[in-house]
């Protein structure tokens, strides 16, 4: 009962325990009570009820007014080859590419403007680095999940 989920900070390995009929993790306990509904007893004793649903490889979890999205990874797999790659979050059109290959960019800097759902969206750099590849030009259509451009972190 070991599972690996991806997170923005890297993979998270989870090994479930069992405690008096309930599953347990990090002091919290939970049991299944219905279709995707679970009763959770937090480490501090609070009882909460939450929901889970799986869509593709992603477990969606609602608990205490928060929603989490945990993508399941094959156990032991690396975080994947997307480090530095910037993925189109939805289908759309490239309105403007704001950087060129070789540019040094700062975390948060806008790299590209996409148009989708009749709105403009900025693709921003997730970290400082140098632009190494740009896969699309102004006016191109992009599919959801397409790699838009790549950034290499500067030597640390």
């Amino acid at each position, binding site marked *: 009962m070991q599972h690996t989920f991806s997170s923005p900070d890297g993979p998270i390995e989870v090994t479930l325990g069992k405690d008096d009929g309930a599953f347990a993790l990090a002091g919290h306990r*939970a049991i299944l009570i219905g279709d995707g509904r679970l009763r959770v007893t937090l480490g501090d004793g609070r009882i909460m009820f939450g929901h889970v649903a799986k869509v593709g490889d992603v477990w969606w979890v609602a608990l205490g007014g928060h929603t989490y999205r945990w993508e399941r990874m094959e156990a032991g797999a690396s975080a994947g080859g997307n480090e530095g790659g910037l993925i189109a979050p939805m289908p*759309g059109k490239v309105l403007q590419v704001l950087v060129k290959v070789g540019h040094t960019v700062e975390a948060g800097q806008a790299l590209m403007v996409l148009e989708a759902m009749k709105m403009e969206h900025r693709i921003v750099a997730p970290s400082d680095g140098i632009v190494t590849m740009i896969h699309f030009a102004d006016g191109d259509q992009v599919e959801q999940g397409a790699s838009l451009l790549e950034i290499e972190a500067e030597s640390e």
Partner: protein
Amino acid sequence: MIAKVLVANRGEIACRILRACQEAEIETVAVCAPNDLESMFVEMADEVVVLRGDSIGETYLDHTQIIQAALDTGAHAIHPGFGFLSERADVARAVVDAGLVWVGPRAEAIEQMGDKMTARQTMRKAGVPVIPGEEVESIDEDQAMLELEEASTRVGYPLLLKASSGGGGKGMRAVTNPSEFHEAARAARREAVAAFGDGRIYIERLLSGSKHVEIQVLADSHGTTIHLGERECSVQRRHQKVFEEAPCATLTPELRDAMGDAAVAAAEAVAYEGAGTVEFLLAPSGEFFFLEMNTRIQVEHPVTELVTGVDIVREQLRIASGAPMSCGPLNLRGHAIEVRLYAEDAANNFLPAIGPLAVFQPPQGPGIRLDTGVREGDDVTPNYDPMLAKLIVWAPSRVEALQRMRRALDEFVILGTTTNIRFLRELCDVQAVIEGTTTTTTIDDTWPNGWQPSENQSIEEASLLMAAMGETLGLHRVHRTGGEVSGSTGPPSPFATLQRRYP
């Protein structure tokens, strides 16, 4: 009499109008694009006409096709909802020319309010305050500067200098003190000439710290024009309203009367008929200024319905059929708040999101209304606006309404598509929202570097426990799909029979 209405819209507003028609015992026709055939609003209509075409332009914006659909199905009237065709004077005229009723104001009223300069002039004439501003057209530098200084004293401080032919912030200068005016005006002119080859400058009063307050009006063909009080919609993101309420927390009865009178005067100035909204900026000084009039039903109309007890869509249908409106005197009661639920990643620059609504469980109980066009199992696609639902609460007081909204958002469960629910929930805890002192810059002021959800380590850990349990127990909650029509047990008989064998 209108016995059959075609609703020329989709999603939640189509559902809203179709339900109103059903309650009024009016037959309904929906029109839908081919990719909307399985949407909820289609199920609510008595008849459906599938529009030919792929894009929005070829379907929901193709008024020729829609008017033909109304004629073909024997509909007497077309309700445009909001967006799409709703503020197109030419369409309103074409509908009437086809012998149908347009559920909205006359084409002339749409035109007069649609052109912003015309609207500004009409409002001035009607005695409705507009944002003070003047254009200075002189080309000669000294002459222009002289005129600009004279205009600045008339407009008042703080003020905004804008390149008349500009945009994108170029040539724009905010001036709070007369002593800074001269230098700022010269700089603005230089930038304007450099950027646009046009040195014309428009001076407008800068209304920082203002609230967006709008007045709902109703006018019938029997000469009655009334207002239904105000809505405050200051909480905006990129000019997109996300949190709307009625009444405005800081409005005095005197100011409500004054703004209401101004809104009625605005409507009467264009011989308005139907439901409309007059939008104002309300400055901290208590001065208010006409922004524009929306000549249609508005997204946030439910908050007014809840505090006034008027069913605005039903009144639209009454007025369109030539009947007098049924509302009595204004009777404001309690407080209503609406939030707009979007499929978007609020933590990532509010990027629209798509995906299946694997779980869609709205809250229930007293004082809650949900206007939505989706249901569990639907897919959120990039084809249309990402608004999933409007969640509206009513309670006897503003404090209680905000408490109820928190409870309702905590109860709402949506899985499978990223939404802004958490953002809305945390918005309810922002000091300006609690105090009712929101302005049009509240969101930017609160989260200057973008919003991130508050962290809760225990709950995050427990969510990992839950995901891991889901995986361990194989809780593969079925994402429901439409399935194929083809049978699985051999080719069907061509002979369909229904045989009752009675003993």
